[in-house]
């Protein structure tokens, strides 16, 4: 009975939200320092927004990975793998993963760099066919303790709960070296200038209150030649697909949120925030404004997700 009532409640809420004109709210996109900002389809002040988003992720932290899998039917793993292949890091890369919470990107980075390093060592060995056995043994000693080739990843997140879950996962999966966990705000990173080779933000920039500040910080902490990569939900241009996607987002995902994580409100926020986020071209312009060059984006799954890339030159 109570379940039926709650079901009816969120259904009517969804309908009300869908019918609300998005135009006026879309004007508040987090660019200027206006007091009126969007939290999903609601209108809130900047401070309120930060608070609410912190709470959202505090609530979902433990079930974050499970929910990702069920909402995207596991496809988010493919998206993250594609991001890693696009990055194509070589050993010695210093990666900053912002809003990296549960560490998905960080673990993939470590795996990738480890396998590249293996291949590198194998190739070196092939070249050493004409060296003496002593020299080969010495090179083993040198490389043995360097399975990552000096690569490092720093996972930065504003939310303590998400970092906790990430650290537990790392321990559970056996990732020990090359990982660092830092508490920090994307709009004001606790790092020095010109430090990192690659900056990634996967499914996190949507939750940042001042996107332009985050982009400027990204520019600041990157080395010259460094790369900015952003994996985020984006605009589907195909109208038929867009309708199906909307249907799925607003009808199915909050229900999943309620059933699996016991929190439909957070997942309601999630799908609304996707609709509020700037489309591909607009985000590309924002990235260019921050000073990046060769800014480009790649649509995955017809625009459900897009990878934006820019270089600090």
């Amino acid at each position, binding site marked *: 009975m109570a379940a039926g009532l709650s079901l009816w409640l969120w259904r009517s809420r969804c309908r009300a939200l869908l019918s609300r004109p998005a135009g006026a709210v879309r004007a508040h996109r987090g660019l200027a320092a206006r007091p009126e900002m969007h939290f999903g389809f609601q209108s809130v002040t900047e401070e309120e927004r930060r608070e609410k988003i912190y709470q959202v992720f505090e609530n979902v932290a433990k079930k974050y990975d499970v929910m990702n899998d069920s909402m995207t039917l596991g496809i988010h793993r493919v998206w993250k793998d594609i991001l890693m292949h696009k*990055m*194509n890091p070589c050993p010695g890369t210093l990666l900053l993963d912002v809003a990296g919470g549960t560490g998905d990107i960080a673990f993939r980075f470590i795996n990738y760099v480890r396998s590249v390093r293996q291949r590198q060592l194998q190739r070196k060995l092939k070249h050493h066919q004409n060296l003496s056995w002593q020299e080969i043994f010495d090179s083993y000693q040198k490389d043995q303790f360097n399975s990552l080739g000096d690569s490092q990843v720093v996972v930065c997140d504003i939310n303590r709960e998400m970092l906790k879950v990430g650290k537990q996962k790392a321990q559970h999966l056996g990732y020990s070296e090359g990982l660092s966990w830092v508490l920090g705000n994307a709009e004001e990173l606790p790092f020095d200038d*010109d430090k990192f080779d690659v900056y990634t933000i996967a499914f996190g920039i949507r939750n940042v209150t001042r996107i332009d500040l985050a982009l400027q910080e990204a520019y600041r902490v990157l080395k*010259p030649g*460094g*790369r900015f990569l952003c994996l985020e939900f984006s605009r589907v241009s195909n109208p038929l697909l867009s309708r199906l996607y909307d249907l799925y987002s607003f009808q199915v995902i909050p229900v999943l949120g309620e059933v699996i994580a016991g929190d439909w409100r957070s997942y309601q926020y999630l799908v609304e925030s996707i609709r509020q986020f700037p489309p591909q071209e607009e985000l590309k312009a924002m990235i*260019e404004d921050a*000073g990046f*060059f*060769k800014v480009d984006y790649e649509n995955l799954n017809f625009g459900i997700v897009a990878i934006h890339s820019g270089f600090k030159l």
Partner: protein
Amino acid sequence: KMAAAGGLRRAGWRLWRGRAVVKCQHCPPARALQASAALLRAPDEHKKEPLTSSSQQHFDSPPAGHQPEQEPRGTHHSYTGQGGQESEDYESEEQLQHRILTAALEFVPEHGWTAEAIAEGAKTLGLSVAAAGMFHSDGSELILHFVSECNTKLSKLLEKEQKLVQLGEAEKKPIDEFLRDAVEARLRMLIPYIEKWPQALSVLLLPRNIPSSLSLLTSMIDDIWHYAGDQSTDFNWYTRRAVLTGIYNTTELVMMQDSSPGFEDTWRFLGNRVADAMTMSNTASQVQSTGEAVVQGLMGAAVTVSNAETSRAVR
């Protein structure tokens, strides 16, 4: 009709020459203009906000090993309004990519034509290794850049020789000797990279790269014929191109699996092919000779490929 064809031929050659340098496929021209606009605005911006960091990361000749982004920022700070100096610090994305690829070439013997070589090259310029992400991961741009550079070097060499002939300081070579020397000079540029060159050839044959690699090849061949001058042969334009392309490609393949000292087998093969081409021009009709040139090229290729297979099997 012949005069018109000749005029068309020369115009076409000039067009090919202009396209001999491969332009970066990934830079939309509008963005370069935007970059230049951003930089030209810089003096005003600087007077207001001396600490702005955007758009000032261009550098033309950073001292090796230093933090290059500090230096240009320093020069911009001391900028007092002399218009001429500002344009020297400007560099487009294309030029930067060009410099990265040139720097990457020295790492090719060790890493092959790969993104790793490009990453090492970027490192020597003081950039992050992530800058290699600007290029395709299979190293296509690096190879195309190298081929384009070699073609430019060859053009300059041939131009110098032509000047010497014009000034009367050197003898004008007979056509077969000229062709032989030109192809040999061009192929010698591959010697430092000869171990990894087969890999490069296979990448150049990828469908994605065929338009660029083909245009580079044909422009080089046209270049050689242009400097060979209008010497009396019985070839028409297409036949000449096909014949020399066949000679070049087959000699290149022979060079891949040549282990003789100083590649003398290759140069002997080259001499024979050029001599065959000369004899061919004195026989039969032009249509037949074109077909024969193609067939000869294929036969030569088949022979060298089978030789390469057997020698590789033996190794």
